[in-house]
Every structure is written in C-alpha cells, then in structure tokens.
C-alpha cells in the first residue's frame, strides 16, 4: 500500500500514544497523530487543546487551528488557556503531547521562534532574527509540564543541529542532569519522530540516538541529515511499515488527505 512520509510519521507518532492518556494536541500532524491513535488503538484517549477544547472529534477535515470551528462542533467543554496550559499542563497532570520543531538539537531542545545568521547565544546580543518563526505557543509549557512528549520534525541537516539557534521549548538542555537540575515537573521529550526515523534520549547523557529508521532510508542517510554525530543504537531496527489497518484508520481521520498532498 502506498503512503507518504507524512503519513508514516503520523502513524509512528500515534503508536507512541497510549490508551487512557490525557494528551494535549496541536494543529496539523500533532492532531492527526492523536486522533489516529484514538481511532486505532486508544479509544479512551483524553485529548484536549491549549484553548481548553475538550471531548472533541474534528469534523469536515483537518482543523485550521486548535480553536477552529472544525474542532468546536462537538466539544464537551470549552474553557480557557489558564485551565488547559496551567491547571492541566504546567501542573504536571498531562501525560503526553505532540509538538513540532523547526530546529531540534541533540538534547531535544526545540526552536520554533526564529533563525539567525549568528544566534544570540553566540553573539551575546538579542538581535532580530533573519527569519521570524512563530514563537513557542504552548509547546514551551508542554516541554516543562507534560510527563513526557513527542517531537515531530522534518529530518534535514539544517534542522537537526548540534545546538538550536534559540531554545523555545526545553529538552534536556546540555544533557546529563542539566534538565533535572532545573526542577521541571515534566519528564522531557520521550522521542523525536522524524521523516527518517525514531530518535530516543540516552538515559545517562540524554543525547538523542537513532533507535529505528524507515524502510525507505538508510542509516547513512539519517546520519548525513543530522548535524551532530548521531549515535546508532546497537540494536537499531527498521520501523515496521504502516499496516493496512493503520493506514485505513489514519485516512479515516485525515479525511481531506492533507498528509497525502505533502509527499
């Protein structure tokens, strides 16, 4: 069965989501992965958005935003940001989340704020970025509060960096116990799901290594597309291809085929 890289990513991310989890989802891939999981294997998943939209299933296609009418047509509750990001995320209550990254580094720190020719941490000055991105939104809150969370990113060398230009959402900072020392209640990123494979943090160093790669790629290609010296798990695996069932279930969610268009 044919499928796109985006679809594969959504399915792999979905596999990381367990039944019953209280999970905060964002727009796009995040939401698709979450609702796919609920439809596929996690019927008791409790998804919500940072706007405090609870109990919803999107209608009419992928929502344009996490407050879009497509996700507001069958909610059981609408509350607010203090509730969703404060009481449920920063409190340490939410189990899981899926966030995106424009840049991610070897310790799972995420940048979604801006691209600099010379970033502030190099120049010691906060100058305007060459390219302004979006800021962190709720991802920074997720990175601090959720018990664990998943990072989705396009696997390219300019994105998988030794150190991101700007830490929007904390991962394991400089590795080792540097995150632990900060006292965040959340456990940090559990995995980076990329367009080429699955990366996990080393339990000691917290450096992300390659745990598994897609059938469509090779370990060499993954390494070539990673700016740090990517370590490979001694028992590195090939990621099992999407099953027919999984693809069917994903497409039942991605009714407008947004993931198929992207290639």
């Amino acid at each position, binding site marked *: 069965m044919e499928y796109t890289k985006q679809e594969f990513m959504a399915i792999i991310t979905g596999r990381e989501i367990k039944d019953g989890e209280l999970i905060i989802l964002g*727009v*796009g891939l995040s939401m698709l992965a979450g609702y796919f999981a609920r439809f596929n294997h996690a019927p008791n998943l409790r998804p919500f*958005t*940072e*706007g*405090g*939209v609870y109990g919803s299933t999107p*209608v*009419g296609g992928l*929502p*344009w*935003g*996490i*407050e*879009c*009418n*497509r996700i*507001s*047509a069958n909610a059981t509750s*609408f*509350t*607010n*940001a*203090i509730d969703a*990001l*404060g009481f449920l*995320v*920063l409190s340490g209550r939410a189990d899981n989340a899926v966030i995106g990254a424009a840049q991610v580094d070897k310790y799972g*720190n995420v940048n979604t*704020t801006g691209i600099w020719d010379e970033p*502030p*941490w190099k*120049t*010691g*000055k*906060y*100058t*305007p*970025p*060459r*390219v*302004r*991105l*979006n*800021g*962190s*939104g*709720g991802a*920074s*809150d997720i990175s*601090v*509060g959720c018990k664990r969370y998943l990072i989705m990113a396009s696997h390219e060398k300019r994105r998988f960096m030794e150190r991101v230009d*700007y*830490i*929007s*959402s*904390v991962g394991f*900072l400089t590795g080792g116990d540097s995150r632990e020392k*900060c006292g*965040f209640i959340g456990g940090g990123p559990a995995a980076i799901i990329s367009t080429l494979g699955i990366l996990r943090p080393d339990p000691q160093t917290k450096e992300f290594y390659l745990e598994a790669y897609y059938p469509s790629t090779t370990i060499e290609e993954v390494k070539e597309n990673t700016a740090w010296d990517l370590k490979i798990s001694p028992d590195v695996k090939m990621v099992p291809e999407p099953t027919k069932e999984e693809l069917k279930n994903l497409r039942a969610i991605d009714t407008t085929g947004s993931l198929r268009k992207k290639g």
Partner: protein
Amino acid sequence: MQNKLLSIQEAVANYTWDGMTYCNGAALPVGSCSIAFGKEMVKQQRKNLNVICHCGSQQVNLLAAVGAVDRVEVGFSGLEVYGFANGLNRAVSSGKTLIEDYSNGAMALRFFGGAMNWPFVPTTVCRHNDQQWCSSDYPDEYPCKQKIPEITDPFTGKKYGALRTIRPDVAAIHVTMADIYGNAIMLGTEWNRFEMSRASKKVVLVADQIVHTDCIRQYPNLVRIISEVVDAVVYWPYAAWPQASPGLYDSDSEHMYYMNKMMKTQEDTDEYCAQWVNNWNSHEEYMALIGKDKIEKISQTDTAFLMDPYRKWIRSDAEIRELQDRTKG
C-alpha cells in the same frame, strides 16, 4: 445599567491612541478576534502601538504590516495552518517591531496576574530557555536576568520565575453576543478573554450579535464578561472575519491565505488596505465587500447549533440602530 453602544468609529476614536498598550481579544490565531476594530485603527492611523497578544491573529499581522506596531508581546505569532504571520514577521525581521516572546501558558498567567493587579506572577515556564534569556527590552544582555528574575518559594526553597503581569490600557475583545450594557457571552474557547477583561484598564466589546438582557439573565453562568468592567459595546457582525466565530461563521480560508500573502510586502499591504481596509465605512459596505456568497458560505458552519438557544433574543439591526442613536453625543 447604562447603554454603552458605540459605533466602531467612535469606539476607536475614544478608546485608542498613539503609543498605547493595546490588547485584542483573540481566541487564538484563527478564532474570535476584534479584527474589524483593528482595521478601524488602521483607518484612523494609530501608530507606535505596544500590542500585547496572547496569540497573534490577522489583526496584529495587519497592524504590524502597516507599521503601526513598535513592540509586541506574544506567546505565538503565527496563523496556525495558515502559516507564519507575514506582516508581523516582516516588521520583526526589519527591526521595526520589537518582539518579546513568552509561552502561551506564561501569557495566560500574566493576564491572570494583571487581573489581580499584582506586579509579578510565579512561573515554572519561560525559565532556563531563551524566552528567559532573550529580551527585546534588554537586547545587550544575554542571558537576560531582568526579564524573568528568580524568586524562591519560602516553603520549599524551590526556585520559580517571576513574570511581569499585564495591565493593558485598552482591550478590544471580540464576543459572540453582548447586551447593550456590556454583559457578554462567548461561544468556543475563552482563551484569555475572561482574565483580559479584568486586567485591562478599559474594555471595548466587539460583538457579532446584540441580545436582549433577558438572554443574559437566562444564562448568567455563561456571562463571563460583565457590564461592570465594560466601557463600550460595538455591534459589528462578522467582526472576526476572515477568522472564525464559533456558532456564527467559519474562517474564510481563501481570504486568510490571501490576506497573509498580501502582508508580505509593503506594496501589497498598501494594496490590501486600499481594497479591504480603507474603502468601507458603514457595516453595509463592509458586508458588501466580503460579498454575499462568501457570507453565506462561511455562515454554513458545523457549529451553528451552538447559537440555537440564543437566537430568539437577538436584536434586529433596526432596533440596534435606534439604541445606538441614543448613546450618540
């Protein structure tokens, strides 16, 4: 209670000024936002604004695109699936607009703290990352220590950050419906509008519908913004267009993309303003510009049933016009 209906022109004239700290009530970048009010600010050529957005929307995208924004504080500046906010990002990258980043959770707490009238509010987020270390207000200090200083919990000795709270001069808050006194019901996520209405020194409601106060009294638990804190009510159907208003209309995806594309250059922004911002005055002209077909299309929303309980209390345009005339100076 006092009838607070004002025309959009009067409301902008009376409640906005150059150099002010301005908040707009957006339920995130695609939802409920007082966009028509922002357009009127462009028409009345407000400038040097300090805009505090919880999330950006097409309003701050436009205001920044026309060069009206000196500084913006934001948790998220993009337009979600509609992409990066081209107008705002152009102003930021050029250095025209300084941007101060926080997380969305931190912004929510900053509004809460502002509503409490505290100077600071504790935080566990925006610490040990660049939201703490980078400040447009202290560009030469990296890592910045003044933006989010450290405080200590006296019970456990644990360290927390202290966020500056927000007390905007004026917030223009979009609501689904309000009565003429300023009691308002929001459908869909509140986002920060409850706290914002209490944190702001002045509040202008921009309401898609005006309802009888009987509706307010039937559903007092839905009335989260109260006349007691509201200064003016603007009646402006489709005020959030091209964004969405749950229960009433969907986002206009075609125009969302188009508008954002036009914000990318100064020239196109000028063209956009000439066509979509500066050539209407009355609400009839505004509606004509959007177009009947488009109105019909976006009004066929899957959320329409959310409005059902309230329809019988909606006041007619004629009624509102009469009520509005009464508040004219």
